[in-house]
Structure formats: C-alpha cells, structure tokens
C-alpha cells in the first residue's frame, strides 16, 4: 500500500479528492453521502444516473465514500402525507449521524433538494440533479443549494429529426397529462413553431393502452416523438422507458426520444439527455463541495443542450443514411466490427499472411526460373541425343547403302530380264509374273530399311509409351545386320519368349541399343574373323525388371577405364566423341533403369541395362496387377 501511495504521489503530485487515484486513501476520514431519490428504486433513468454519480465520485475522491440511499417513490405515493412520513422517517433514521453531503434527485418538484434537507440537516451541503422542465424555485437559491437542472433538448431533437429525415411532414407527439408532462409538451409546442411545413399532432388524450393500435398504421412522412407520460388520461403512470418500448415496438414509422437512457428499445434517437454525462458532472460538483467549496458560490446550472445520440440498429431498420448524422453524434448499439474487436490479431495475421504470400511468390518465381532452366537443359540434352543418334546412324550409312542397293539391284536386274522376255515372240508370262512378284517383295525390303532408319533421324523429345522389347531389339539388330555382315561379325539375338511390356521411348531406347552394338562391333576389329560374334540377350531378372545384355568377344575394357566409361567425353576410340555411353546412361536412367558394364567369359565386354516393366502390365503368369 505504501508503494501504491508513493506511486500515486509521484504520478499525480496531488493528494486531494480531485486526484485521479483509483484507490481511496486509507488514512483519510470516510465521507458519508446520502442520496435521496424522488422516484422508486427501479426507474431506469435514475439507475443510470446514480451509477454514473457513484462511479465518478469514487474515482475522483481520495477519501473512501459511504453511500446511503433513500427513495420517496413519488410515482406510487404522491400525497402530501406520505412526503411528511418520509421526511420524519429520514429525520429519525439519520438523527445524530454525521453526513458530509446530500445528493438529491428531485423530479416532480424540488422539495427533496430544498425543504427536506433544510429541515433535517441544515448544515449539510446539498447538491441536486434533476431532469425536467420545471422552473427552479427561488427558495433553492436562497437556501444556498447548488445543482444541475437538465432540460430536454427539444429544439435539438427536432433538428435531428429534420436532418435525418428531411421528408418529414408530420410529427406525432406522445405525452401525458401530469404537470410535468404538460410542462414538457408546452416546450415542444413552443419549439414546434420554429419548424415550418411540419404538422404537429399531440396525442395526449389517448390512453396508453390505445397507442399500439393507433401507431400501427401511420403513413410515410410521419415520425413519432415521445415526450413524458408520468400520467396518461386514465391516470396510469409510465416510466419513459416503458412508454418508448410500447411506442417503438408498434409504430410503423421511426420514433424519436428525449432521454438517452431509453435508447435501445427501438427508438431512433434524439438530441437526448445523456445520463452518464450528467451523473459525471453532478459528481464533479459533489466532489467540490466535499472538498469544502462554498455551495453558495456555485450557482445552479441549467443545461438545455442535449447530446445527439442514435441507435445504430434503428438507423438500419429505417434505412437512414449514416452520412446524415451530425459529426458529434453518438452512435449506440453498433456491433463492433471484427476489425475493432480483434485489431491486433488481424494485423498480426495480416502480416503473417503477407509474409507468407511474399515467400510463396518468391518460391513460385524461383520454381519458374528453375523449371525454365531445366527445360533449356532438357532441350539441349535432346539436341545432343539427336546429334549422337544421327552420328551413330551415320556410322551405319555405308552398310545401309549396301543393304538398300541389294534389293534395288535385284529390282533392276529383274526389270531388265522382264524386258528381254517381253521382246520374245511368245513371252513367258509365267516368268514375268514371278519377276513382278519379286520386284514387289524387294521394294518392300528397301522400304523397311528406310523406315527403320528414318525414325532414328527424327528430332524429337522423350515420349513414353507401351513398348514390345522383342520388336525393338529385332528391329535394331536388323538395322545393323548389313554392317555386321560387311565386318564378318556373327550377330545374333536371344530373346526369351513371353516378355512383359516396358514403358518408354522407342527411338531413344533403340539409340542406346544401337550404340552398344556398334561399340561391341568396333571392339572386335582386331579379333580373327572366325571368332567375331556379338550376342544381344533379352530377358527378365528375378526382381521382375527387364534386362538387355550386349556381349562382344572383343578386347575387353581396361580396369582403370571401366570406372569412367559412362562419363561424358571419355573415349578409347581415336575418332570417338565420348558421348555415346554418357547419353545412353542418361536415357536409361530417365526410364528408371540402370546400365552397367562388366567383362565376360569370352574375354570381351558385356553391357547390361535394365528397364522397369510397365506398371499396369499384368504378370504373364496371371498374377495380380501391380498397384499403381
């Protein structure tokens, strides 16, 4: 506590009641404040007012304050006798009690602020707060009582009505018949004269029970202004909040009010009495008296200005534009926007999202650049493969020319023979027919050679499809057969029956096989003719992959060369580019297989590559399809 005190002193540098201390000074004497209300305990306007006064007083005064409250309940007990009983009761109850201040809340008259305290506690300063239209009696001034009289801001409310709803032609005023009610209505009448072109309709003679029915069908261009109705014509008593609730819930047009405390039950608003503000100002006054100010030097304040205040929900309901509201207008019951409720969280989340978005964008850009680079590499790789393929096929050119000349020569010879037959007196048609059949067959042979070659020359990217390995190997072997023959090499293919299909690019795989076969044939140049043989074996491994092995009986590979043989630009041939095997490995690995080299029993070399079988392919023994 001492620390708190020191803190308080340092922070504010004051120690009287006006210090903004939140805790009351324990060493200072307790101040006792008696609050006397004219009405009952449950009047909404008073509850707000009382609460505001208490809060502000406690906040602003360093002394602890003890509140005492009494209620006259004039609404229910309005006769003179009752007042006397109440006064006697208070007098007896507080006889000999020390009171520091009396806070009076009169409503119908000012007796609570004047006669009563002067009779019972002549030495205790009195502050009053009243919301009504009654004139302040001279007596109060004489007694040295101070306080605040808050008038309804009728002029301001009418102004607000016309501002929010310029099309208004008629204003229905609902009020009661008591003195207070009449005083209010009088002021409304007075104010209405300033408004031209608007008809005022005073519903003072209707009992409150009839109001809902009458309000139900008011035409457009009309608004309702609720005045006070302490008593209706039938003598029933209403709090303003009760009345507004009845009116606003049944009226077919917007309803305006004069008291801020009734806002929230359906009315649009008005230039209203702000109870909280009023309470705070009264508390301020009270604090000054508690601190010893002379009440006679503090004149009674009469406030006529209200606070423009509206109910956001009613604006929405009646489709009244917010842009019409005056700048100082208080808007109540507006749902807090998500932004208002969670500003920090939203900012945080926003920052996180932004950071995330920037990161993602950066990653996307990076990925795009990488993909572009990869595409370029891929394109160059394809180009290189094409060049290598063309050069490989180029090695076969001589053999292929020979292979083409064979059928072409046969065609020529056959044609020449046919000419001779035709020159004879009795041409042998049987023979000529046989010749033509041979020509046709040889033409097809030449065409096949060209077809095999042509696909290898095409410039194309990797495409994947279902491949029959047997067909691929047989075609490739056919392509090199002429070359093998010219080089006196026995070329054979051993292909196991019932091979499953593989997935891959036919031309590229053919390129690999062609490369391996030509390498093998080159390796046998120095081998005696009768020993030159090259075998291509195709089969399935135990793991279920397909395997192609190309075995020569050439000179073999030096052990130190075996490790580098698949590296680019590594070559053992005098005119080799060193790309063939590097490209072969690239192609095979792109197919998900691998390629290796090893020595074989014939002292030559065997190149083996594997390829995964096609995924959807069913096993030849009728097993389950592989899961995809």
């Amino acid at each position, binding site marked *: 506590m001492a620390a708190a005190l020191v803190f308080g002193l340092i922070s504010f540098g004051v120690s009287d009641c006006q210090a903004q201390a939140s805790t009351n000074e324990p060493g200072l004497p307790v101040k006792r404040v008696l609050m006397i209300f004219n009405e009952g305990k449950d009047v909404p306007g008073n509850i707000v007012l009382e609460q505001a006064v208490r809060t502000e007083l406690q906040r602003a005064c360093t002394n602890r304050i003890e509140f005492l409250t009494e209620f006259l309940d004039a609404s229910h007990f309005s006769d003179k006798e009752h007042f006397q009983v109440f006064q006697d009761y208070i007098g007896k109850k507080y006889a000999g009690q020390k009171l520091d201040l009396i806070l009076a809340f009169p409503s119908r008259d000012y007796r609570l602020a004047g006669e009563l305290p002067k009779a019972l506690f002549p030495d205790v300063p009195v502050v009053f707060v009243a919301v009504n239209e009654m004139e302040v009696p001279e007596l109060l001034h004489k007694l040295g009582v101070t306080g605040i009289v808050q008038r309804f801001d009728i002029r301001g409310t009418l102004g607000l009505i016309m501002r929010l709803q310029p099309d208004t032609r008629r204003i229905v005023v609902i009020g009661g018949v008591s003195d207070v009610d009449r005083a209010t209505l009088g002021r409304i009448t007075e104010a209405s004269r300033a408004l031209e072109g608007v008809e005022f309709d005073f519903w003072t003679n209707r009992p409150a029970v009839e109001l809902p029915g009458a309000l139900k069908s008011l035409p457009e261009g009309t608004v309702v202004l609720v005045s006070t109705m302490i008593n209706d014509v039938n003598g029933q008593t209403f709090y303003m909040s009760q009345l507004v609730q009845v009116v606003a819930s049944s009226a077919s047009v917007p309803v305006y009010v004069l008291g801020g405390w009734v806002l929230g039950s359906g009315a649009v608003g008005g230039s209203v009495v702000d109870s909280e503000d009023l309470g705070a100002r009264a508390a301020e006054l009270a604090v000054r008296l508690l601190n010893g100010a002379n009440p006679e030097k503090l004149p009674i304040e009469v406030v006529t200005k209200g606070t423009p205040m509206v109910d956001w929900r009613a604006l929405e309901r009646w489709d009244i534009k917010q842009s019409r509201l005056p700048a100082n207008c208080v808007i109540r019951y507006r749902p807090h926007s998500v932004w208002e409720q969670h500003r920090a969280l939203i900012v945080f989340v926003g920052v996180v999202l932004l950071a995330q978005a920037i990161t993602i964008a950066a990653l996307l850009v990076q990925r795009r650049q990488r993909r572009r680079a990869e595409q370029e590499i891929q394109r160059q790789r394809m180009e290189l493969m094409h060049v290598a393929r063309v050069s490989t096929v180029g090695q076969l050119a*001589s053999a292929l*020319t*020979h*292979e*083409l*000349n*064979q*059928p*072409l*020569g*046969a*065609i*020529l*010879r*056959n044609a*020449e*023979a046919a000419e*001779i*037959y035709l*020159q*004879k007196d009795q041409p042998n048609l049987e*023979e000529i027919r046989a*010749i033509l059949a*041979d020509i046709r*067959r*040889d033409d097809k*042979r030449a065409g096949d050679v060209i077809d095999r070659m042509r696909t290898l020359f095409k410039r194309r990217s990797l495409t994947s499809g279902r491949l029959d390995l047997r067909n691929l190997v047989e075609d490739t072997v056919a392509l090199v057969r*002429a070359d093998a*023959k*010219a080089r*006196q090499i*026995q070329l054979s293919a051993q292909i196991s029956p019932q091979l499953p299909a593989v997935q891959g690019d036919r031309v590229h795989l053919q390129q690999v096989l062609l490369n391996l076969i030509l390498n093998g044939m080159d390796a046998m140049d120095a081998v005696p003719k009768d020993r030159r043989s090259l075998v291509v074996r195709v089969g399935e491994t135990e793991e279920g992959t397909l395997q192609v092995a190309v075995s020569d009986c050439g000179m073999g590979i030096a052990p130190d060369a075996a490790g580098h043989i698949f590296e680019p630009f590594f070559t053992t041939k005098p005119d080799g580019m060193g790309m063939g095997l590097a490209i072969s490995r690239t192609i095979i690995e792109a197919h998900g297989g691998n390629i290796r080299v090893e020595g074989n029993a014939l002292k030559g070399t065997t190149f083996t590559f594997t390829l995964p079988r096609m995924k959807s392919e069913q096993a030849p023994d009728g097993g389950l399809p592989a899961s995809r």
Partner: protein
Amino acid sequence: MTATLPRRSGTIFIVDDDLSFLRSVSRLLGAVGYTVQAFASAQEFLDRLVPEMSGCVVADLQMPGMNGLELQDALRRSANPMPVIFLTGQGDIPTTVNAMRSGAEDFLTKRARKEELLAAVERAFERDAQERQQRARSQVLRRRFDELSKRELEVLAHVVQGRMNKQIAANLNINVRTVKLHRTNITRKLGVQSVAELTRLVDEAGLFKAPRDGRLNPS
C-alpha cells in the same frame, strides 16, 4: 544387241548369299542367252568346282563365311582359275583396289548398267578362253621338258638365267665338261637351236615361275 549375243561355250557361275538378287541376276543373264549356275555361298560353289567348268564367276563381295575376295583367292589356287567379276552393294575404294590387285576381272556395283555387266562377262569369257588356251599350250610344252633328267633341269634353270658354263659347274659342283654335255642333251631333246630359243620355250611353258602369278595385263 542384247538378245543376239554371240553364243559362247561356257557357263556363268553366280555366287551371292542374297537369294533375291541371286535369282534376279541369274534370270537376266539366262534371258540374255548365257548358261547360268547359281550358288548361295562360296563354299557351295567351290565344292562343285571341277577343271572342266569354263566361263566366269560373278560373285558378291560381302558374304558371310567366305567372302568374295577369299573365293577369288581359293579359285586362283585351284586347277581351274576362272576370272571373277565382283558385284557389291557399295564399292569402297580400299576394297576395290584390293580386289583388282588380286586379279579381279571387273568390279561392279549391283546396280551397274546391264551393258556394263554384259561387257564384263564378255571380257571375262574371252580371258577365260585365252587363259585356258594358254594353259593347254603350256601343258604341251611342259610335256617336252618331261624328257629331261633332274640334273638337266637343274642345268637348264641356270642356263635361262644367262649363266656361264664355269659358273654353273661351280654352283652344281660338277666339272665344265659335264655341263657342256648336259646342254647338248637339252638342246637335242627340246629341238632348239639357240639359247634365245631355249629361253622363249621355257618362258612359254611357264617353267621356273611362281605358279599362277597374278597378271594385271593378260593381253
């Protein structure tokens, strides 16, 4: 001219492993009027080869097993070295030079003009006839040398090289008189008058020469 070639005795022996081409070329040459025999491999042909066959061989250069050049080589060593015309899918220069150096009659691509082929065949036939005649005359001449003794043949070999009697005597380790006696016997048995005549006769008989020397200019 195609269908009316001068008929010659003799056969064209065609050797090619490409059966389609073998059939077509046989067909053409047969239609022109030649007698034709076709073989699918060199070995098959060599197995059937007898000295009585005359004509020429038309062979593919590139064949599995024994190729064209090897066939020509085997033929040249045989008793019936017929001229060989090579046909090839594509003639590259080293192979051509090699073939011609080995005494190939001609070297043609498989798509050569018919006239070239027929001309080559004609030339080959002519050469075969000449060589056959030559071989027959040599044989007759050689029979005359059969009358000479072993020692007389040894002396003759030295004489045709232009050696003096003294040199021959020293070389064969006999005396000069004996050499003179052998020379007299030789001229008498062969019926020649001079050393020049003797030398020509030896030359015509093809004596003391490497057998079947390749001749680039047979005429």
